[in-house]
């Protein structure tokens, strides 16, 4: 299989799906870039290059640069979806969701249910997320717990290029709204990506690694950190199941419970702050549904309950590290 970065895997998927379905349009800030400037057309292709080439290939009718107006971006995507299109709305940074929250939370998420099932709202909202680039408190957040808590939204958080392709393809063919988080630090991450049509169903976790002593659940960049931790522990004879849920709504709880039947010990790793998080959510469900399986208290490895700090050392300390994950695994194994 060819090896590609997550950025390229996403970009090629957008190209393939827009070619396949002419109802797919994309709108956002600088998805092309250059409009009204003195330089070249399509000067940006997205701030991280994920939409590169779409404007040149599909034209300005389907690849729409918007003013800096996040509320209008999300709302316009909603309206176009109700009128028969399949819009991709891009927020330049996930943090900017704050500006557009009503259109996502009160509008898009509720249409299908609130209108008695008479409509669907096939919007894919893409947004770069996460810390690791010292971008400060308003450009570094992992806000997917907030979105996951909203009924009506599907939430996707890939950790590698192949999953990014498979999940994005599924998202673009789904009739419900999907919020698709792309971790900024993972854009350059390379991996094998299947050629041709490749879809991964939502609500199906990946068993990234198999082991005996504990179950580690990790999301997005934390999957790569958990793998580093496990590399170290395996040399010391500790092996773990590593599960990547890939979608937090729907969530594949069954795969986690099945793993716990073998291990009885659970560590959940997430870059978000701990309260009302994906980690606490999974911990709660496991405590409720799998209490008899547990041989040790569940450990959560998360960011602290603070905004994301700017300075290098502070940000590094904010993000859970492979060492933090190793320590949590050792703790549940030793219990």
């Amino acid at each position: 299989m060819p090896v590609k970065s997550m950025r390229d895997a996403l970009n090629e998927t957008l190209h393939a799906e827009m070619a396949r379905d002419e109802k797919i349009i994309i709108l956002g800030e600088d998805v092309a870039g250059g409009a009204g400037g003195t330089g070249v057309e399509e000067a940006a292709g997205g701030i991280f290059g994920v939409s590169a080439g779409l404007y040149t290939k599909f034209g300005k009718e389907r690849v729409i640069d918007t003013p800096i107006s996040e509320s209008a971006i999300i709302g316009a995507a909603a309206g176009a979806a109700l009128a028969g299109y399949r819009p991709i709305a891009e927020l330049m940074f996930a943090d900017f969701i704050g500006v557009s929250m009503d259109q996502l939370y009160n509008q898009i998420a509720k249409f299908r249910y609130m209108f008695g099932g008479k409509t669907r709202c096939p919007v894919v909202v893409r947004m770069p997320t996460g810390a690791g680039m010292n971008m400060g408190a308003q450009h570094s957040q992992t806000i997917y717990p907030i979105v996951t808590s909203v009924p009506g939204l599907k939430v996707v958080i890939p950790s590698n290029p192949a999953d990014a392709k498979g999940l994005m393809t599924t998202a673009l063919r789904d009739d419900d709204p999907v919020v698709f988080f792309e971790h900024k630090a993972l854009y350059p991450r390379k991996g094998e990506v299947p050629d041709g049509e490749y879809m991964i169903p939502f609500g199906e976790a990946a068993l990234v690694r198999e082991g005996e002593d504990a179950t580690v659940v990790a999301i997005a960049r934390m999957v790569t950190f958990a793998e580093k931790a496990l590399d170290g522990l395996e040399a010391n004879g500790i092996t773990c199941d590593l599960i990547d849920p890939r979608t937090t709504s729907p969530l594949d709880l069954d795969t986690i419970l099945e793993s716990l039947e073998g291990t009885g010990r659970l560590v959940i790793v997430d870059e978000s702050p701990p309260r009302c998080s994906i980690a606490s959510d999974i911990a709660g469900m496991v405590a409720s549904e799998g209490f008899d399986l547990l041989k040790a208290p569940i450990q959560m490895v998360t960011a602290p309950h603070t905004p994301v700090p700017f300075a290098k050392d502070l940000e590094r300390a904010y993000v859970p590290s492979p060492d933090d994950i190793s320590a949590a695994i050792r703790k549940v194994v030793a219990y």
Partner: protein
Amino acid sequence: MALDKTRLLEAYRVMKTIREFEERLHVEIATGAIPGFTHLYSGQEAVAAGVCMHLSDDDYIVSTHRGHGHCIAKGCDVIGMMKEIYGRADGLCKGKGGSMHIADFDKGMLGANAIVGGGPPIATGAAIATKLDGNGKVSASFGGDGSSNQGTVFEAMNLAVVLKLPTLFVYEDNGYGEHTGTSYAVGSDDIAGRCEGFGMTAKKVDGGDFFAVYEAAGELFDQLRAGDGPAALECTITRFYGHYEGDPQRYRAKDEVANFRESKDCLKNFRQRVTGEGLLDDSDLDAIDAEVAELIDRAVEEAKAAPAAPISELETDVYISY
């Protein structure tokens, strides 16, 4: 609104300090010494200076992601700012904020803001406070052409008109909102006209001309202080660098910045005018150049030598952490 020699020198010092600060950052960022995401204000100095010279420490401003110029013009400590941008323990915000989040409440600087359009509602609230206090103080928000397209900004302008608040909405149209041109993204291509539509006085000036900005801002602040409600000032200007440091700027013609540096450099324009009219001598300005260069050298030197923000600060300044 004639400026005496002291005030002219002050204006030049502010603008020169901003320019040197930003030009030096451009160099230092290229070495990889500065973390994160930095947006430089070079080219726009006359706006920050022309507006903030009408304000005291008790008046409020709210700034943007491109905020260093506003901070300097409002009197923030330049060395503390540089340390903040380097992520140092004794930076103005202890290294927790960074380039996009510098604030100094002793100077009435209520914070730079990394959400486009995040600032104007906050400045509006500060104006509610000054109005309630009845102390004659005012607030001003800075925003770019891009911010003029945000719903939050529309809401703030309307609220300010409804409540007749002493706040000035300053729009710096530097030609681009991130990577997209103003002429594309601002539907009417007339921000001042839009502001008038909300029911406030609005002026449009050449933001490269300190005197034009200073005079227009002065008239508008007089209106605010007289209790006649909010106003807006659109300043047409350019930025000498990209949206952020590292931006390849493919949206710009190759010679665009060079031409602007030649024709629209507010510092050159200022020097030409004040020396041409015999208001100041070149030697006065050269002396400031030397002092500013020394200050910026010292700021970088001290920032480099300062201790990094310690890990012990990670969970402070929140009322509770888990």
